[in-house]
Structures are given as C-alpha cells and as structure tokens.
C-alpha cells in the first residue's frame, strides 16, 4: 500500500474554480515531492490560483516565470543546486499552452541537455488563464473561444515529441486517479535526469461540465481510451492499471464527449477520426507491450 503523507503544501484558500482538477492534482504532486523542492510555474491558471501578493496559498517556494521560460528557468535552478551540492528538487508545473506551444523550445532544450528536473504538464486542453482559447493540445472538434465552431486540427502528440528525447522517465496521468499520479511522481523523483509527466486535468468551465463531475469526466477519458495511462522508464513501456482494464473493455467514446459542452458542435466525421486515433494509439501500445522494441 502506498501511504500518502498528511502534510499539505497547498492551502484551501486557492482561487481555483470549483472542481478544478489541476489544483487537486497539484496537491498530490506536492505531497509526493515533499518540502525540499521548488515549484517553477510559467503563466497559466496555476499562477493565478496561488492568490494575490502579499498572500500565498502555497507552503513551498513557488517561482513564477514568464510563459515561455519554465524549462529554461528550471535548468538554471537545477544547475545551481547541483553545483552547490544541494538535493533540492526542481519541479515545473506548467499548462499545456506553456508546454506544447510557446514553451516547447525551452522544454526540448532542457531535455536534450539532460537537465535534472521533473516537468509536469497539466493538460486542460486550452488556455485557461486567459479564458479558454485553443492550444496545440485542444482536441479535434472542441469549442474554445478561438475555435467557436470547434477545432479543426487534431491534438498535438507531445508525448511522442518528448519520447524522441529519450528521457529516463515519461508517464501520463489523470487527475481522476490521484494514487497513480502520486506513485508516478514518486518514481520520477527517484530517477536522475529530465522526467516528464503529462497529466490530463478536466476543467469544468473550459470543458463545460458541472464542477461535481470532474472525477467522472476524468475517469471516462481513461475508460473510453481517449486518455491512456502508461509510463516508460528507461525506454520500457508499462500500461497502468486503469488503462489495462480499458484495453480489455472500452466504454463508447460518446459517453465521454456528451458530458462536455465543448463537443456540442462535433461532427460525425470528427468523432470517427477521434475514434480512429484512439484505436491506433491503443494498437500501438498493445503491439509494443507484446513485443518490446529493441
């Protein structure tokens, strides 16, 4: 049994929206990391939920940095701590926009240089801070304020981009499975070098579902195969429990889509494309798990 520490590093007074799953997840991330850490946060919802100076809702040092700069800033921090012989962990908690769009260059650089840090991208599939515009991570068919008719481009596959850097650890997680997240953060922090966790974080106002459904929506993402939980340690892929179950028996995709107002304009054709992408991703994983690539 994994024991989750009782210490809280994020206080209840955040200004997050009701049902904000990225804030719930951050709570577990911080519990897994413990107090000897610095959280680096680029512009995103997490820069707002901390509250307003001189108050803060966080009980660990949080370094806020410009939107594109999180991974590079963390590189500098990590280099300085290692030079000083200090073990303090450097963790980036960034949104999908700050990761797959404007922050991608700095992120790729930090991974290529083998920076010792953990980069967590919480993915609410749009720019939440500025009121839900599209990001490269917004799925096909989703309405955002800059895709009022539904997005016509598919979601960028950031995981395969990061995998191409051959990091020692990369995993996906989902806010609806906090224990899985906790274990993955713990595992990541036990390894040296650049680690990446891609966390799906349903966002009630952005995805347009009632706040109390936030766990249900997250679970459906996994059960329909829209979001696959896995981890890759030193190249070896392992599918996580909830997704192993989903691979055997999947809930129809519609169950997930129809809970969210952002998909109300989605076309039949787009649904089929989403379905094909799910099938393809699951097939690729199933194939690799059966015959690990050398």
């Amino acid at each position: 049994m994994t024991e989750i520490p009782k210490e809280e590093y994020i206080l209840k007074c955040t200004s997050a929206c009701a049902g904000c799953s990225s804030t719930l997840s951050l709570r577990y991330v911080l519990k897994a990391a413990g107090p000897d850490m610095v959280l680096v946060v680029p512009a995103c919802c997490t820069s707002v939920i901390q509250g307003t100076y001189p108050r803060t809702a966080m009980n660990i040092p949080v370094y806020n940095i410009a939107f594109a700069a999180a991974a590079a800033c963390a590189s500098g921090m990590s280099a300085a701590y290692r030079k000083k012989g200090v073990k303090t962990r450097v963790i980036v908690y960034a949104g999908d926009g700050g990761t797959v769009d404007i922050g991608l260059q700095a992120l790729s650089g930090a991974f290529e240089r083998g920076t010792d840090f953990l980069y967590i991208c919480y993915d609410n599939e749009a720019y939440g801070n500025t009121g839900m515009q599209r990001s490269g991570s917004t799925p096909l068919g989703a309405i955002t304020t800059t895709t009022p008719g539904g997005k016509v481009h598919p979601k960028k596959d950031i995981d395969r981009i990061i995998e191409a850097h051959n990091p020692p650890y990369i995993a996906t997680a989902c806010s609806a499975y906090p224990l899985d997240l906790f274990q993955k953060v713990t595992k990541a922090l036990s390894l040296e070098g650049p680690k990446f966790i891609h966390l799906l974080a349903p966002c009630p106002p952005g995805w347009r579902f009632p706040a109390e459904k936030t766990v249900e929506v997250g679970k459906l993402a996994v059960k329909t195969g829209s979001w696959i939980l896995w981890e890759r340690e030193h190249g070896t892929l392992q599918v996580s429990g909830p997704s192993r179950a989903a691979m055997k028996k999947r809930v129809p995709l519609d169950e997930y889509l129809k809970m969210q107002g952002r998909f109300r304009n989605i076309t039949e054709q787009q649904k089929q494309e989403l379905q094909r992408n799910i099938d393809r991703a699951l097939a690729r994983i199933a194939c690799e798990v059966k015959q690990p690539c050398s």
Partner: protein
Amino acid sequence: MYEIRIHSRGGQGGVTAARLLADAAFRGGKYATASPFYGAERRGAPVVSFVRIDDRPIKVYSQIQHPDMVVVLDPSIMEAVDIFQGLKSEGEILLNSSHPITFEGYRTHCVDLTGIAIARTLVVAGSPVVNTPLLGALAKVGIISLDAARAAIRGMFSDNRNVQAAEDAYGELVL
C-alpha cells in the same frame, strides 16, 4: 452625471448588467459608459462594475468614488464588502431580495430578481439570470425607459423571456 455601482459575484452577470444598462441609456439618447473592475478573481468572487450616464460625453475613467446608486445582485455580498462605501447621502440602493429591507439615510428598493428569473426559467449553468430583470427594475426607478430596456435586451438576447423578465420586474417593483 449619474453614477451607478453594481455589486455582484463573478459569473452572476454583473458585467453584462452594466453593459445592458449603458446600452439602454445610450438608446435613450444619453451618453453612457460601463466599466467592469477586473481583479484576478474567479467564479463566485465579489465583483464591481460601474456605469456612468450623462448628457455630455464622459471623460472619466477612474472608479466611481461617490455613486448616486448602488445595485446589489447578491445580498450575501454585504457580509464581505461595504456596499455603502462613498454612497451619496440620500443615494439609492437597489437590492435583489425577496423580502423588503431598508437602510436608514438611503432610498432602498427591493425586488426579487432571482425569483423572477426562476419563474421565467432563465437559468444558465445553474445560475438564475438576474441581469435582464434588473433592467426592468432600473426602468421602474426611472434610470432608463422601459422601451430602452427592452431594446437593449433584444440587442443582446434573442430569447424573449429576457424581455418578459424585465417587464415582470418593472411591474413588481413598488416605489
């Protein structure tokens, strides 16, 4: 110049209310500005917006210091904010409330905007829409005409229940 401060909660439509009011005043031949004050706050947090109405172009952008009227869309806000701050003596207060409340030294008008919205099934994402009935109440108080209120509402909402809600509030508010 007539200055109005609207207190509401984030997500309650206070900003839209300010906009509708300025729009209606403008349609009534006046100059009007509406400016929401944005904090970095989210849904549920107290928000204020300002509306100015005048016969001449309005050049002031700073926040209203001494309103002629204060509108309170959610009375529970009074526990957190001082709605009387700077309010002119003899100033008016318009309260969204199902029961009458009076405040000494001010002219207080109470109308059950929430009840009207619910009766007209004007509920969006679980919250009753109080800003369109508010316009009817403001017309009754004489800030704008009922016709201008109707026109402004029609300009923003296609659903006629919004206009009906404004008419309900106009009828229900007793001066």
